[in-house]
């Protein structure tokens, strides 16, 4: 099975979907001739032409709005936001339009658009090239939100997003692009939206999270098992909306001790909702308070290295939080 980088898996998913269905096309700033600022769309314009890999004016609301219009016709647009930080001018189009088109038309119209946006920090991007914006959109019914952890999931979830009849926000972590490699089958598989994934079985503590920080958690879990005999059960949500409640319940019941991890800041993050679900439905399964390890509640990540390091999660922070929970 081919081993590839997370970014290559995203590109392969787009390429395969564009080969499969001529209604699939990509649009965004610099996606064509340049192949994207991260090279995510590199080579696609050469293969599929300028119209299907469309360099757009620098105007995010139009990128989203035009994609929404084309999707209502029946096209399958993949709109790229260069950084999720720059997605906010398109928020009205995403929340007032894409999310509500099926509902407000009483199922007459639909909007099968995919909006891809790189999230996260750790790349010296400063305040406006480092944000995790998923919590802004989380809690808006009508949207689906996915955030892949592995190269395998990146390809499978993006293919599922393209085929989904409803709008999907695809949050890819930019630090994963080159850092994360993995086996990616070259066949036509999908990872279903709405299904979480157990990354690791364990009996002592449960860690629930998504995207980049789970790599730190997995490293920490391996060390804790070897060094301290702590066995962690790790659940990757994969889809943030709709949450896989069954998988959350099952993972919590397994150990009765839960740590929720994400890079997005703590207050109002996805972890708050996961925690509320557990509190509502599984209180008597718990042997410890629910704990959260998240980005701090500051507006965004500063660019200076000590501040960036302070903001970002890492293996040590994960290990400490997991040990504390195990010891409770």
């Amino acid at each position, binding site marked *: 099975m081919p081993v590839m980088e997370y970014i290559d898996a995203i590109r392969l998913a787009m390429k395969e979907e564009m080969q499969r269905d001529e209604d699939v096309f990509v649009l965004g700033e610099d996606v064509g001739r340049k192949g994207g600022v991260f090279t995510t769309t590199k080579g696609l314009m050469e293969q599929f032409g300028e119209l299907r890999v469309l360099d757009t*004016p620098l105007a995010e609301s139009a990128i989203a709005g035009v994609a929404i*219009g084309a999707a209502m016709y029946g096209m399958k*647009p993949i709109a790229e936001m260069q950084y999720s930080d720059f997605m906010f001018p398109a928020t009205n189009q995403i929340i007032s339009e894409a999310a509500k088109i*099926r509902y*407000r038309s*009483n199922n*007459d119209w639909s909007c099968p658009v995919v909006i891809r946006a790189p999230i996260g920090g750790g790349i010296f991007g400063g305040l406006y090239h480092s944000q995790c914006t998923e919590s802004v959109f989380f809690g808006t*019914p*009508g949207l689906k939100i996915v955030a892949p952890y592995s190269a395998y999931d990146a390809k499978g979830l993006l293919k599922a997003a393209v085929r989904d009849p409803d709008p999907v926000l695809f949050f890819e972590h930019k630090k994963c692009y080159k850092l994360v490699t993995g086996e990616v089958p070259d066949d036509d598989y999908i990872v279903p939206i709405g299904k979480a994934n157990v990354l690791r079985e364990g009996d002592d503590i449960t860690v629930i999270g998504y995207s980049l920080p789970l790599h730190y958690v997995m490293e920490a879990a391996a060390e804790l098992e070897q060094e301290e005999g702590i066995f962690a059960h790790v659940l990757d949500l994969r889809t943030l909306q709709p949450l896989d409640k069954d998988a959350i319940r099952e993972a919590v019941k397994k150990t009765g001790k839960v740590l929720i991890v994400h890079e997005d800041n703590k207050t109002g993050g996805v972890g708050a909702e996961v925690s509320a679900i557990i509190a509502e439905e599984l209180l008597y399964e718990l042997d410890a308070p629910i704990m959260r390890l998240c980005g701090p509640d500051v507006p965004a990540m500063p660019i200076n290295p000590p501040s960036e390091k302070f903001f970002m999660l890492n293996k040590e922070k994960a290990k400490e939080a997991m040990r504390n929970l195990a010891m409770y």
Partner: protein
Amino acid sequence: MTYSGSVGQTFKHHELGLSDSQVIEMYTMMQMARVFDERCMLLQRAGKINFHVSGIGQEAAQVGAAFALDREQDYFLPYYRDYGFVLSVGMTLRELMLSVFAKAEDPNSGGRQMPGHFGSKKLRIVTGSSPVTTQVPHAVGLALAAKMKKKPFVSFVTFGDGSSNQGDFHEGCNFAGVHNLPVIFMCENNRYAISTPFHKQSAGKISDRALGYGFPGVEVDGNDVLEVYRVVKEARERAMRGEGPTLIDALTYRISPHSTSDNDLAYRTKEEVDEHRSKDGILFFKQYLMDCGIWDEEQNQALLKQLREQLDDATSYGDKASFPAPEDTLLHVYADSEGQGGQ
């Protein structure tokens, strides 16, 4: 606006390729929109419905545009005052009344949206929302689809003069200009954004903005149904020839208050409104048809009587129709059955 002519002469509508029966149909649609609108104001004042947003005074622009489009193929993105437009492209009075009463059978939204938020896939009326101008990039996206799929349709989008200040207007026009897309942007310039007059919204002419986007901008008397028909038809022909978008600024006047929740005399005078009432596009078109010798007062009375009957039927139908079941609130969040809203 003056029309000259007598029997036997070639009239303006003939020069435009419109038959006598077509112009009478246009006039009928204008009157239908007007009586519908007036009825809704009454229904709101009588406490039968909660809200109405009016298009009185703008019927000529709406109907003229609709008749210039391909009503079998084009895609329409009307804004919330466009009763004359949607009636002309196939929506019925009963369907509008179902929307006014927010009933389950309403084809626009199943009773979910405010009246004036049109949508019908069958009629290619693209579902709209309340945040203004979001429909402009959608129209551009539909035009992009036409170009990609090599389909012979244009998208036609309307908005108010207030809306033309939104970013989505500029972003949409610019995108369409760059990619030379078959889309027609028509501003129904009724001179007010709720209470704010045009001179406090823009220091220039809306049609002039097209120059910056690299396509033609045309100003037209929006009270003159045949002139609007002419410029929209030309814009459509340009689009079909692959020559890209057109921006049309249809100058008209909002005779009604912004909505039933608005007291317009707080910001404009009765004299001003009355002056524009005398320039009403419906009155002028009626006079034109009479000058052409294809319409008379007797026919006019018969038409109004017939429209009143249709309206009575539609009002009673809408009033008596069922509301959606309360739990239907949860339906159609997503396509799949698991996608129902939760609590």
